């Protein structure tokens, strides 16, 4: 089931909300169980055959977590339990996500004829990473013992289950335990609806609206220079509004239940460096990779050279996490190289004089954006040959079409660029503060005009009117 579907908006969400608050009048536990069951139903709509796998994964990790938290095991045994837990998670993820890739490469290298077809369970990367973080924290002694329903809800919580954000147990489970979240709060419901509306609009009107232009670069016909740029920029903004829209919708839905999710997106195309970009794009994944991969690898604690090696390893694996294909590996490698250059420049490059700081920021923004756009070509292309072909067209200004269609499309792309660069983001509009658990204080204090309310109502209406029968989120594939 998609957030941008009539069945979700007009049936599933209202029913789950009503049930949650109705049960909240009676007990503190029943709404948690209700929400976890509703999340499983939500998941089943996307792939019913994978529900058992999800349940087994929860049971396995909860069991391993129990051994790490509640049992007084000696250090060696604790490490062995953690190893088994993480290895189990990675094995399942590896089989489902990478077996086909591995076999394809084996066939290519040794001309073997192995054949494997495994369907990727929806959201497996997200719920696996979530639980690996839980196990590592349990091993480190940073986890109190959680009740099974709360843990199960933490893993399955439907606003995040399919495409993130990657949640942290310490952030979520205490919220699930609070009695206050089970009572309807009109302010939070309104703020949630507004944030959901903005996200829905981004998805249905902006991302789905520009999606057809992507074929200019990645369609069946070889593009000209301008068509290649239009298509690649269209994808750049499609991905942006698609993912940003999903993240907003997840936050908005969760807010209606009184649960505050972490931010996952903070205007990444406004980044003035690649380091800054990764602090703004898929923020929870960046944090996960930093805390559970980069730092355990040694981070920057073993000298500058090893820091660059660790960065490259982290980004290569980050790329591979997005998809089992060489294009994703190259995408990750490119970002690894970008980050290394960025850190090297920060350490050894000249500093801009204060009076040129603004100019340097603008130059940094343009350079970062172009670097990211180039990398997106690999992210989008079905294979390396297509990616290289598109890049070669982008570098060949001798072949230009620029007819009426291209002019109109270029105008569209410019409008999207203006929105991405100049418009405030959702959390700025709504005053969403995850750390302080506050949102929409201006709205509550009546400091916002009624016009704001009606404008956001229009945004919800346009978002609903923009729903198409066939639409999917790009991050569902990961």
């Amino acid at each position, binding site marked *: 089931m998609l957030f941008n579907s*009539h069945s979700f908006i007009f049936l599933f969400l209202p029913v789950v909300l009503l049930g949650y608050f109705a049960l909240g009048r009676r007990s503190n536990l029943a709404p948690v169980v209700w929400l976890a069951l509703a999340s499983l139903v939500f998941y089943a709509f996307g792939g019913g055959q994978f529900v058992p796998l999800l349940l087994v994964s929860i049971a396995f990790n909860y069991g391993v977590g129990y051994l790490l938290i509640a049992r007084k095991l000696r250090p060696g045994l604790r490490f062995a339990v953690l190893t088994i837990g993480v290895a189990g998670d990675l094995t399942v993820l590896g089989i489902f996500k990478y077996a086909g890739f591995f076999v394809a490469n084996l066939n290519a290298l040794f001309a073997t004829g192995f054949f494997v077809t495994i369907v990727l369970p929806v959201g497996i990367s997200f719920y696996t990473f979530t639980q690996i973080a839980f196990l590592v924290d349990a091993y480190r002694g940073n986890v109190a013992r959680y009740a099974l329903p709360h843990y199960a809800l933490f893993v399955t919580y439907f606003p995040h289950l399919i495409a993130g954000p990657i949640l942290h147990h310490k952030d979520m489970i205490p919220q699930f335990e609070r009695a206050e979240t089970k009572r309807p*709060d*009109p*302010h939070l*419901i*309104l703020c949630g*609806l*507004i944030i959901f*509306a903005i996200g829905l609009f981004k998805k*249905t*009107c902006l991302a789905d609206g520009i999606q057809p232009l992507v074929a200019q670069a990645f369609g069946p016909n070889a593009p000209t220079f301008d068509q290649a740029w239009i298509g690649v920029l269209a994808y750049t903004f499609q991905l942006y509004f698609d993912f940003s829209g999903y993240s907003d919708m997840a936050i908005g839905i969760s807010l209606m239940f009184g649960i505050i999710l972490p931010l996952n997106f903070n205007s990444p195309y406004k980044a003035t460096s690649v380091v800054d970009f990764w602090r703004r794009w898929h923020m929870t994944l960046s944090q996960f990779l930093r805390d559970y991969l980069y730092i355990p690898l040694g981070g920057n604690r073993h000298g500058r050279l090893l820091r660059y090696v660790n960065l490259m390893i982290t980004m290569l694996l980050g790329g591979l996490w997005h998809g089992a294909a060489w294009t994703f590996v190259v995408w990750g490698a490119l970002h690894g190289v970008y980050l290394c250059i960025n850190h090297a420049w920060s350490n050894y490059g000249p500093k801009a004089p204060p009076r040129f700081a603004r100019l340097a920021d603008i130059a940094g923004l343009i350079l970062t954006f172009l670097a990211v756009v180039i990398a997106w070509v690999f992210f989008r292309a079905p294979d390396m040959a297509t990616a290289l072909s598109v890049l070669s067209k982008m570098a060949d200004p001798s072949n230009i079409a620029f007819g*009426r*269609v291209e002019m*109109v*499309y270029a105008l569209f792309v410019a409008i999207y660029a203006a929105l991405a660069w100049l418009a405030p983001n959702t959390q700025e509009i709504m005053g969403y503060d995850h750390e302080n658990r506050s949102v929409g204080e201006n*709205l*509550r204090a*009546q400091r916002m005009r*009624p016009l704001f*309310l*009606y404008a*956001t*109502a*229009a945004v*919800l*209406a*346009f978002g*609903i*009117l*923009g*729903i*198409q*029968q*066939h639409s999917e989120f790009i991050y569902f594939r990961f």
Partner: protein
Amino acid sequence: MSVSSKNLWRFLCAAAAIVLTAAALNFVVDPLQLFRPARLLPAMYSADSRMQDAGLIRSQDFDTVFMGTSLAIHFRQSDIDRALGVRSLKLSMTGSNSREQGFVLTAAMERRPKRVIWQMDDWIFRDAPEIDSDIYVPADLYRRNIRGIGGYLFSGAMARESWWIAARAIPPLEPIVARLTNGVMFKFPISRVDDINALRPDFDVAGFYNANSAVAAFRRITDPARSHSIAEGYNYEAMVRGFERDAIALIESNPNVTFDIYFAPYSILHFVAMRDASPATLKMAYDLTAYAFPRLLQFPNVRLHDFRDVKEVTHDLGNYGDVIHHSPAIDLKILSWLAERKYVVARGAPLASLERLKAQIEAYKVQP
């Protein structure tokens, strides 16, 4: 009631009001003419046949339906009417398969046409997704069920077109809006039903349809790097299944409708490409004809026309834009052949034209 509660209600009511206004606009303007023919505002049409056909079936008067793929997309209804003395409705869909065609034709049958003119070839019978999994066909719109009608009325894209059509009907705005209605930003740019998917008068026909284009296409598809594409979609069992499911079932269930089925005059290069680059595919094409022709001729309401061996057309490469797509001049010839009942496959010798075609293919030598 708290301030937040009041704001929440205001917000929900305002959103609902806007959604309902858009639905009302769509209902009144009815861009697809799904509820009624355009009377209040001038009609506008889209070149997206798979969507537009759902409205045409409902709003147009017709006694003859014309169906096909891109090979039958540029026909003008006025030419069909003049040549055949009928009132036609063109429903051809570019790249369509038999499942899509059968589905659309079934919807058209509810209007009880007397005649169906159906351009067929073997490729339309390739394996195709279920109609509800076909993302290009708005199946519920044809079924006119709640999902279809709801999706149509509560569609922002359709509301934008409605707004555009309404604006164009206001005299002072008409010239400006008409200039902007170019099909790039707005999807209903055609004001005459006869012009849907017809070539514009200023189209460079000679520049597009000529021997150089045909030969270049032949070289392209027979290039060893790409020639595997010739066999794409060809699977004999699947094709026979598609033929029985989509063509025979429709013919069988409409015994009072005359089916004029014709196999289009591909350039000879199409078959020669198969002969040279993928003989197994050519054999499948032969086998399907050998199966389909006698089967079709079992039905008294079928008239079968095979134009594939009309040498004066198929061997004149100047008629083609590539190895299959013929020029509008050939469209007119096809209509005249249909009117004259020329090249009708005799019930007593259903495979005679196939044998002639085979001989032509074997004999043809490609110029170096």
